[in-house]
């Protein structure tokens, strides 16, 4: 317990600073949120057209109502679990300002993480809660009963936390590439498209044919968006829940270990740029 409270005391100021600096950029933040909402509605209308033209009411066990919830929720989860650590870290490595982190008695990865969590606090209050309430109202209107369950929601929260950490460390590893490459811009774009395709952000993985779907579901990317969204929608049985959550945990551990290894290696051979 002592360790946890020490950790909180040490990194709390980073989260607080993260909240404050998110506030400093609230206008651009709101524009971003608006853009994402428009994107959600576009996706919604595309899927609606797909369902209408197929002439069937369900597609791969998804009703149109499911699909609507999926579009908004997966975006929401994408919001919550998205991490800018690739670009932030790569920039710091490039201009050498990462040394300003290293002269403080903190872990480099934790200090980036806890700062970003501060940004997430803004997202949770300004975007997540309103959209979630909207989704619940929609579900109630379509289904005629309250589909929301507290237990399910708590499991969803656990899953989102895991997927955020997973996504953070995955992004961090891409950021560390900056130690080896002068410009990681291309890799960063590639990573973005890989994540949005394989994580189910564009198309639910359930829509892919058998074997492809099974493969995709084992990849770490599925753990980032698809899994929490499906949990929220109550698509997993208890047994499946245990399985997908342990898979998330497994990938998280893998990425933490990899990123620690790269960092340890880089610290020994690190060549910080700039005078």
């Amino acid at each position: 317990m002592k360790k946890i409270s020490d950790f909180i005391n040490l990194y709390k100021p980073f989260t607080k600073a993260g909240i404050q600096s998110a506030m400093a950029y609230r206008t651009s933040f709101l524009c971003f949120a608006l853009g994402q909402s428009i994107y959600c509605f576009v996706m919604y209308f595309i899927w609606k057209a797909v369902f209408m033209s197929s002439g069937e009411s369900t597609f791969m066990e998804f009703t149109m109502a499911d699909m609507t919830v999926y579009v908004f929720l997966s975006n929401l989860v994408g919001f919550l679990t998205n991490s800018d650590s690739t670009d932030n870290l790569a920039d710091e490595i490039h201009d050498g300002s990462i040394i300003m982190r290293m002269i403080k008695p903190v872990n480099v990865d934790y200090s980036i993480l806890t700062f970003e969590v501060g940004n997430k606090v803004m997202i949770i209050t300004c975007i997540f809660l309103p959209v979630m309430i909207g989704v619940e109202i929609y579900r109630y209107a379509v289904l005629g009963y309250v589909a929301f369950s507290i237990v399910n929601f708590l499991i969803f929260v656990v899953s989102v936390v895991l997927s955020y950490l997973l996504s953070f460390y995955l992004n961090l590893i891409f950021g560390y590439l900056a130690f080896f490459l002068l410009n990681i811009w291309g890799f960063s774009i590639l990573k973005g498209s890989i994540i949005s395709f394989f994580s189910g952000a564009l198309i639910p993985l359930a829509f892919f044919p058998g074997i492809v779907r099974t493969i995709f579901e084992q990849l770490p990317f599925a753990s980032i968006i698809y899994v929490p969204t499906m949990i929220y929608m109550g698509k997993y049985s208890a047994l499946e829940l245990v399985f997908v959550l342990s898979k998330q945990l497994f990938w998280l551990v893998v990425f933490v270990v990899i990123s620690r290894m790269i960092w340890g290696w880089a610290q020994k051979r690190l060549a910080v740029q700039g005078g």
Partner: protein
Amino acid sequence: MIYVDGVTKEFKKVVKDSGLKGSVKSLFNRKYNIVKAVNDISFHVPKGEILGFIGANGAGKSTTIKMLTGILTPTEGRIEINGQIPFKNRKKYVKEIGVVFGQRTQLWWDLPLVETFSVLKQVYQVEDKAFNERMAFLNEVLELNDFIKSPVRTLSLGQRMRADLAASMIHNPKVLFLDEPTIGLDVAVKNNIRKAITEINEQEKTTIILTTHDLNDIESLCKRIVMIDKGKLVYDGSLTEMKTQFGKYREVNMSLFSNEDFDKLNFVSEFKVNDEDIKINRSKEKITVTFNSEKISISNMLSYILKNVQVKDISVNDVNIEEIICRMYGKEVSD
């Protein structure tokens, strides 16, 4: 306090072809050039001393500071500070040091300055009482009050540098590393910063290592200097000693009616001295001749000049320390 023993830092510079193809190729088949940024340097700094660390651009000063602060691992050699090895247990080690890199900032860009201090207070776990005393002291010497509520991105360079210096001292470090703390500042702010450095050193017996290109910083702060050139230590001793060692040099500054006249002079053959005893620096308005006054007496020098050229104005001066340092660099280059 600070022991540096035979420390070398090599950088591998990747030689790569241009373009994406070159990048990919260099990923798999890397060719390196090895650069010795710091080459076998040793020195010792006792507690409470302010050491001036000087050298030309690219001499290896910042690289040394980065090794001393635990950011870089030396390729060879040993560093011990406060009984600790900087890069071994970085998090523990950096609690006891303060660092300023003049070209960078450790302040939170988007937050009011005062927030940075409160973040640092928590990160270093400084008690309220100690923190308040410290802030009062820093406010007084560095005059932070005028802008302590402004976001850091709105500060001027001088304000930012004062704030950065304050930030490096908030936790009462045993050792301070200042890499060009006065870069780009006007005279008034420089004085301010020097005053703060002196006071912190006197009050807390803080050991300080400072790099700078402004020799006034050195003259007003350091009794001892270490000079490096191309990664090698070329001088370690007191400033006064260095001045006496090179004090035999004098310079004659003159302006002539016609600069072509000057070509008539040939000091080396006239006085039968070596090339290194004479250095000539010509510009449009002024000609400076630096000479070794042990080999050529001042009166001989003057009479030779006055006899042969028409002088508008002439004066003889001691060589300033910038000149001395230039000479020392020059000496290393010619070795």
